[in-house]
């Protein structure tokens, strides 16, 4: 890790940058994070940012939270990690509480209840559409697109149709998919090596 970028100068600067970033993030903070931290502030080089993002995706927990912990701790240790997570959550949480209080006040009105209902249905569609977008990235998967999609479909059936709890499904499907992927990658690397 040679050139990481300048980094923030103080904890306060880190806090406000992440607050600003979080407040711009509607349904996906990654593009905003890249623009604010790399292009505007130049705290991190694009290369370094991408590497950190890859690591954030491997670790459990929301990716953007992991990224905040990683960038914060790299600059200011444990305190930096704490301040970064605080930055990403405090203002959005406050705003959401105000929005929730507002809707709770008027929930009895049919139009407000109906609006919430409509937004709920649209949210479900948003999540489905985002998942399908992500499924596009499976085209280059080591298991081939068809193989990867098979895992997606079986997972869907186990959770949605047969209604199994998440953890056993994640353990069984995740482990078998990871092992098969490992075997495939190893196989292809060996094949390439012998050419």
């Amino acid at each position, binding site marked *: *890790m040679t050139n990481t970028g300048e980094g923030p100068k103080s904890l306060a600067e880190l806090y406000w940058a992440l607050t600003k970033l979080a407040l*711009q993030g*509607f*349904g996906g903070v990654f593009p905003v994070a890249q623009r604010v931290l790399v292009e505007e502030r130049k705290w991190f080089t694009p290369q370094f940012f991408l590497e950190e993002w*890859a*690591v*954030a995706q*491997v*670790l*459990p*927990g*929301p990716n953007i*939270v*992991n990224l905040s912990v*990683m960038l914060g701790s790299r600059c200011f240790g444990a305190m930096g*990690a704490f301040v970064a997570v605080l930055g*990403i*959550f405090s203002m*959005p*949480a406050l705003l*959401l509480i105000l*929005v929730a209080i507002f809707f*709770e006040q008027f929930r009895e009105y049919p*139009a407000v*209840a109906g609006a*919430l209902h*409509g*937004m*709920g*249905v*649209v*949210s*479900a*569609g*948003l*999540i*489905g*559409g*985002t*998942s*399908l*977008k992500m*499924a596009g*990235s499976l085209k280059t*998967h*080591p*298991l081939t697109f068809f193989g990867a999609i*098979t*895992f997606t479909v079986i*997972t869907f059936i186990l959770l*949605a149709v047969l209604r199994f709890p*998440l*953890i056993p499904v*994640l353990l069984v499907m*995740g482990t078998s*998919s*990871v092992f*098969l*992927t490992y075997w495939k*990658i190893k196989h292809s690397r060996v094949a390439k090596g012998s050419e």
Partner: protein
Amino acid sequence: MNISFSDWLTVLLHFASMSVFAIGGAIALIPEFHRFFIDEHAWLTEAQFSSGIALAQASPGPNALMLAMMGWNFGINATPVGYSHYAFAILGFVSCLLCALTPSCVLTFTATRWVQKNNEKMGVVAFKKGLAPVVIGSMLVSSWVIVRGDFVLANNWQIWLIALTTLLLVWGTKIHILWLLASGAAIGASGLLGSF
């Protein structure tokens, strides 16, 4: 709803234990929390569950705030007679969010160096790529459980139509999600979808 102190502990422990399983983010946990809050315990209504997620999506910030909204509605339902709904809602919001975040943040803090060092190793690459199809599957289920739960209650086929239209628009176009949410709010406010 009669909710005791030990029910609060059950909820907070569930958030904490699911934290490290949030591979792919908070959205992938929706089916599990739907099962936990509605099927298993009946501590939230379908309307509260889906409107909480909707408000979190309509408001900026990380998706993990959806989990906080589950805590918010749980707090409202758990409010003892004579106390403020909002005090308990905020308590639920903050405590559930903290429990959902702390374990995975601690894990990230301690494991980052190791993963950075081994990021190119075959095992780490296989872990990342191997989990992707399974995570996408559980995200699709998140979408499914919200629409299905909604449909069972409101019994209105337009719900499927609107969810599917949104899905196709998100998948195929670059339309901003706030436009979609605003359209959903307008359609809902007109009474077309019926009420819960």
